[in-house]
Structures are given as structure tokens and as C-alpha cells.
């Protein structure tokens, strides 16, 4: 028996929480002397009312879907993977190597190859922390934090000293060959007389991300592996009773997690910059933690949370473009959204539950 109807739990509560976050954000905007309503309109118009705006929103969302899923998968096995950032960096290296050194005939093959490269490198970077956790009990939170730093150093070395074309100022690889360039939304959805998604970086990788959501959903809730993964996450002692090997599950969960984080770089590196740059992850690995937690580690929730963050990123860019509101305001708004929808949700739920219970009693 539930305390309140399901729709209230999944729709009403998040909406009220968002509203609260919005109200507080508005107060902050007021405090710095700007008009919150205008700011809000600007964000919505810039992010959701134009195809190009959507093109950016979905581009960012694609990143967050991958890193969010990565954190979510590990979470199901009760592993806290804070290493998404490093795994995504390595994933970028995989993409770069695949794109630069394999003569792909067509982008459709290239994206497969690059995805494999990204997943492989990302998974590899998660393997050592996973193995150490499983075999030596080394806490995965520490090791993945450390591996983020190590990844940054590695990437820095590789880009500056090995992959950078001679004479180039940028610590970045050469541009990837034409054949690996991914179709953007503009390429896909524009008609002769109606150009859509002009200039926006959203590209086919978005569909890859949607597919990843589906695959993760199937994996977690429809396969034996997912069943074992969740069982292990809920109770290690019971998992052992059932004959589930902790070592195997830990390693597999982290490999999948690392692979997903790595695949984010297909979007940034192959889809957007078309070369590997030093700063390609931009903290998306950390946003992934918030996205996964807010999405309650469910692929569909991750998708929604990623879209929300994509909106905040793009809406924030619009604010920065047309107003003098500092970019940090967006960080504050993000914080408030995370806080209210993710951590303070019970503040809304508790009174609502009472309300629904009272209503039910009234009916009865």
C-alpha cells in the first residue's frame, strides 16, 4: 500500500522542488540587482524556444547522460565511482587514437570504432581501482579520485609531447580527418529552405546516448548481470549466499561504468571539437554524480536530470551572452536545483504524504 499516488511521487514532488529552487534562484538574481523574470525568460527562450538552443541543450545533455549513467551503474553495485572525469579523459584518448590512426571510410564506421576506443580506454582506467577494491579492499572513492589526477597528468603529457602537431600552440591533437566528422543535428534535420540547429554542436552521439540509456535499463532490470549487480549492491552477504562473486561483480560494474564515462568523449571529442583538447571533459564527470543521484540511478531519471542540466548550461550561456549576470550565477542555480530536487525532496514529500493520507481518510 502506498502513501500517495505514484504520479505525485514522480511528477508533483520534482515539480514543486524545482519551483522552490527557482524561487530561491530568483531571490539571488534580485539580490545582485537583475530581473529574475527576464532572466528566466531569456533562459527558456535561449535553451528551449529555438532549434539551435535545443542543439546546445541536447549536446550538454548527451555528456551528462553518459557520465550520469556511468555513476548510476556503479551505484547499483554500491560502488561510488568519482572517477568519471578521468575515465572520460582517457576515453577521449581512445577516440583520438581511433580517429587519427585508422583510415575510416565513413563516419558510421568511425563512430563505432571511436566508441569502442572510448569505452575500452575508459574501462581500462576504471579497471585498476575496481581490481584494487575487489582484491585489496582499497576504497574506490580514494582510488578514483587519485586516478582523476593521474589521468589529467597523463593527458597533459600525451597532448603536449606526443600528439600535438609541431608548431601548434594548442595542447591538442591534429584535427580528425573529414571522414570521421559526425553529422550534426543541422546536417540531419535541416531541409533545403529551413536550416535547423544552426551552429549547434548536438550530433548523432545524442542518439548513441539515448541508446545507452536503453541498454543500461535493459542491463540493470532485465538481465541476469543486472540482477546480480543490484543484489550485490543491496547485500553483499546475500549475494555471496547466492553464489555471486564479489570480485567479478565489482570489476564488471566498474568496467561498464568506466566504459560509459569514456563514451562521453565521443560527443565532445569526435562530435564537437573534432580533435582531442586538454579541457574536453570540463567537469562533466562530476556533474554526472549529481545527475545520477538526482535521477535516482535510473536511466530514465538520468535522462531527465541530464536534460535539466543541459538546459541550465545552455540557458546559463544565454544569460551570459545577453546580460551582465556573471556566469557563477548559473553554478548557484545548479546548486539550488540539486539541493531541492535531490537532497531536500523529503521537505516536499512529508507534507504531501500527510495531505494525501488525509484526503484518503476523508474519502473513506
Amino acid at each position, binding site marked *: 500500500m502506498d502513501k500517495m499516488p505514484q504520479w505525485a511521487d514522480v511528477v508533483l514532488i520534482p515539480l514543486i522542488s524545482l519551483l522552490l529552487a527557482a524561487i530561491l534562484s530568483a531571490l539571488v538574481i534580485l539580490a545582485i540587482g537583475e530581473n529574475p523574470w527576464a532572466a528566466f525568460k531569456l533562459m527558456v527562450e535561449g535553451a528551449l524556444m529555438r532549434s539551435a538552443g535545443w542543439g546546445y541543450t541536447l549536446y550538454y545533455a548527451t555528456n551528462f547522460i553518459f557520465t550520469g549513467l556511468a555513476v548510476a551503474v556503479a551505484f547499483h553495485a554500491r560502488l561510488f565511482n568519482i572517477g568519471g572525469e578521468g575515465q572520460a579523459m582517457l576515453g577521449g584518448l581512445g577516440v583520438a587514437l581511433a580517429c587519427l590512426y585508422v583510415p575510416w571510410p565513413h563516419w558510421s564506421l568511425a563512430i563505432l570504432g571511436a566508441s569502442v576506443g572510448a569505452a575500452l580506454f575508459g574501462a581500462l582506467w576504471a579497471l585498476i581501482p575496481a581490481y584494487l577494491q575487489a582484491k585489496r579492499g582499497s576504497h574506490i572513492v580514494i582510488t578514483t579520485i587519485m586516478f582523476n589526477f593521474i589521468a589529467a597528468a597523463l593527458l597533459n603529457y600525451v597532448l603536449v609531447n606526443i600528439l600535438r602537431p609541431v608548431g601548434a600552440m594548442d595542447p591538442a591533437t591534429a584535427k580528425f580527418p573529414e571522414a570521421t566528422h559526425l553529422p550534426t543535428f543541422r546536417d540531419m534535420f535541416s531541409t533545403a529552405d529551413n536550416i535547423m540547429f544552426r551552429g549547434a554542436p548536438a550530433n548523432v552521439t545524442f542518439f548513441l546516448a539515448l541508446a545507452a540509456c536503453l541498454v543500461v535499463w535493459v542491463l540493470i532490470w532485465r*538481465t541476469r548481470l543486472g540482477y*546480480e549487480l543490484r543484489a550485490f549492491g*543491496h547485500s553483499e552477504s*546475500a549475494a555471496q*549466499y*547466492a553464489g555471486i562473486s564479489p570480485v567479478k561483480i565489482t570489476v564488471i560494474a566498474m568496467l561498464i561504468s568506466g566504459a560509459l564515462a569514456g563514451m562521453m568523449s565521443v560527443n565532445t571529442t569526435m562530435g564537437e571539437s573534432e580533435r582531442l583538447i586538454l579541457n574536453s571533459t570540463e567537469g562533466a564527470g562530476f556533474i554526472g554524480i549529481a545527475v545520477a543521484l538526482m535521477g535516482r540511478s535510473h536511466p530514465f531519471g538520468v535522462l531527465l536530470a541530464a536534460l535539466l542540466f543541459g538546459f541550465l548550461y545552455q540557458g546559463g550561456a544565454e544569460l551570459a551572452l545577453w546580460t551582465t549576470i556573471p556566469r557563477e550565477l548559473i553554478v548557484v542555480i545548479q546548486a539550488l536545483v540539486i539541493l531541492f530536487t535531490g537532497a531536500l525532496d523529503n521537505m516536499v514529500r512529508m507534507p504531501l504524504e500527510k495531505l494525501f493520507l488525509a484526503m484518503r481518510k476523508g474519502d473513506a
Partner: protein
Amino acid sequence: MTAPAIQLKGISKAFGPVQANKDISISVMPGTIHGIIGENGAGKSTLMSILYGFYKADRGEIWIKGNKTQIPDSQAAIAAGIGMVFQHFKLVENFTVLENIILGAEDGRLLRPSLAKARKELAHLAKEYELNIDPDALIENLSVGHQQRVEILKALYRQADILILDEPTGVLTPAEADQLFRILDRLREEGKTIILITHKLREIMDITNTVSVMRRGEMTATVKTAETSPEHLAELMVGRKVLLRVDKKPATPGQTVLEVENLRVTDDKGVERLKGISLSLKAGEILGIAGVAGNGQSELLEVLGGFANGVGTIRMNGQELPLTGKGSNGQARRDAGIAHVPEDRQREGLIMEYSAWENSVFGYHHDPAFQKGMLMDNAGILDKAQEQMDRFDVRPPHPKLAAKNFSGGNQQKIVVAREIERNPDLLLIGQPTRGVDIGAIEFIHQQIVQLRDQGKAILLVSVELDEIMSLSDRIAVMFDGHIMGERVPSQTDEKELGLLMAGITQEPTAEDWQVVDQQFALQEEEHEGENNG
């Protein structure tokens, strides 16, 4: 006339939509032991937790010693002289006994003086009530029986004169239970008031002065113990006649199913827990393993179930099973035809967050029967689970409900159903009825006997000597990692088993008998009582 020690008036409590207590009133006189019985989930624990200030009642009044008393939290309950031993102990596992005792009842800001004082007081209490315990032992290293002593000491240390015990004997050995009852007797004589929740009617008949019966959140009856009988109470509780004794035909053992030779197990602390066990088990018989908890029974189940490593030989239907390495896990054992109802259903047998249907294949999720291509056949599993729950009378029969939302008895039924449904050659079953109400006990016992009658081998581990005696075809007694001997139930008695359980095999000396006499004094009296009555 003296005022009642406790008087509850019109207590109601709802957990969300669940009405756990409905308008409950009772009163308990000082210097008496009052029993409360009822099915799993009837609301017994809730009612007592309200009295102890753990939950807050929605409505109702509490009167202590004739005064209306507000009990908003446990602090107030303690101040009113109430102590409670919860069903699930409230101890800090990695604290010492002493630390647990003083927690919340320290004398000052610094620990040292409090600890010193408690140590003295503890020594005193120990002497007075035979509650011996090492004050510096860590809780996690103590047996459940000793942990319970700590809980009782906690209450006594706080000078409680009203003591609530929620299913105290569910986890105790008979000897421990008897000792507990001696202590309770003592306390009653001192004028203290005791409320005792239990599923064991014998205990009610033995020790209480009055008894209340709860059903579905309501108090359905309160009677004087002297004026009732177990059968009557059972009927009040469940609402139908309950068979209190196991009804079974003699066994017809077939081929040998399980052979264990010289089995040894060392735990992760390096202590040898099984010291060379040999036994064999035939199809169609129940081998009961008796013993005081902690003498290797758990390890025996674990190593046979494949989740502890060992050395020695295990043969299943003539096939030798690996005891270490890759081939030694729960999965492999299930493939070899061994099903296993673990001792601890919540930690091992179930994923508490999983729904009942997901739990209905736990451990067997690899079985091709539950697969559909690369995916799990969730719809099929759900259907089967529903059918299984109906057949095993799991209440409520909702397969989509999470395991944690079922009562202990029904959780146990889910596990038993899952393991029996597999039609195994061998069923390992540990503490099958721990904390389960009599209705469910009856049902689970029937299932076990039925499985035997279908020609399956069953290895039963239980600390309930009653259960062992009434279910087993043969009884092996374990002590300190050894099997002390085997007996046939019809040719032994609790006294002899008690000797073996204490590790005494040779012709008993007078001293040995004294030990056993002490252990079973209470039970003896009770048997006589039954004979007379």
C-alpha cells in the same frame, strides 16, 4: 487496591496507511508477568515501542503507577522506570559491553568515572542475577544470548522496575531461555513488572500471570494464564484451530544422498570451527543437528551451501564436490541439487529491497527456465512467484511488494517456498522458524515433513530442541566443532541430548548430571505439569 503498574488507554498508531494499533487498552499489575501473543505483524512490537517512547502514539493515554504520564521519547520512559529489550537488539556492535551499558546513562562528561562505576555495579548485578558477562568484550564477539544479557543489564542498570521483553527467547538456546526465566521470576519476586512478548505458548503457560492476545492491530482478549490452555490461546491468536504437534509417519530412508568425511573449516580469524565432521544422510530422512549456537552448526551449513571454504570430502549422490576455489560456490551447490534455507533470512536468504517475485528466484536466477533469450523472463517469474505465494500462503500475496515489507514469518515462507520449489535432492535448512508465529511454524513444519515424504534428504539445524526432537528422524549433536554422537528421537530424551550438547559423552559423573539437571530443571517441571494436567 494498588494501582496498575502500567495502564494503556485507547492507544492507536498508524504507519502511513497501516493501522498498527487500534484503540488498545490493557493494564498490568505490579509484581506480575504479563504475556502478549499474536501473529507476525499483529502490532505487538509497535505497542511496546509506544510504551517505551520509541514511537509516538496517534491517540491514547499512558498511565504509569497510577499517574498519567507523557512518554514522548525513550528518555521519558527510562525516567518512568521502564526498560525494554527489543526484538532486534539496540546495541552498538563494536562497542564493549560496558560502553553499551553506560551509553545514555553516563554520570558525567568524562567517561572514566562512569565506566568505573558501571563496572562495579555490573559485578554486583551479575552476582545477584547470574548475569555473568565480560564487561570488556565487544558486542560483535558475543553470542546472541550474551547480547541479550547486555540488554537486560542495560535495563537493570537504569533501575527499571517495568521491564518489556520483545521475543526474548527467539534467539536463545533452551538452557539460555531457562536461565532467562529464572531471572524473570526473580525480578517478579522483587516486585518488578514484566511484559513478555513471545510466540512460544509454552513460555506463556510457564511463567506469565496474565496474557493478552493481539490480532491485526487489536487487542482481542486478555485472560488469566491459569484459566486458559495453549490450544485455546492458539485459536484466539490465529482464529482457527492450530496443530501444536508435528504429525509425521516413520521415515523410509532410501539411498545415501550426502556423505561428509572429516570436514574442517577455519574462519577468517583463523579459528577452526569445524574439527573433522563426518556424517551421512539418506533420501527420505531428516537429520537434525542439535547444539548450542556457535558450536559450528552455522559453519557446517555454510560450507555445505558453498559459501565458506573447507577441507575434507563432501560427496553428493556419490559425486565429490570441491570445497575451495571456483567450483565451490552457492551456484555450484545448487547445480548439484542442494537447496539451502539459510539461518539468517534477512542477511542471506533475501535481498530485502527486492520484491517478492525477484526474491523467488534468488540464487536460481541462472536457471535457463528463468531466461528468455539473453534477458530474464520477468513476466514468467512473476507468474510463478504469484502461484508460489498462493500455495505457500504468503501474506499479503503480493509478489510486487518488497521483501522488507513482509513480516518475519512471511519472509521465511518466501525463502522456504523458493528452496522447496526447486525439488532438491538435499535441503539444508537453518533455524526454520526463528521469530515466526505459531501459524507459520505449523505450516513450515508441514512443508519440511512433506518434502521428506517425497524422498528428499533434509539437514535441519536448529537451536530449538523441541523442533529438533519433533521433526528429526535422526539427531546429531554438535559441540565445539565435533559431532558428539547420534541418537534416534524415540530412544533419547532432552536430558541426554543436553549432556551431549555440553560436550559430555562418557558415562556421566554426578557433577555432569548436576549441570544437566540445572539446565533442564524448568522443562522437567513443565513436562510434569502437562502430565498432571
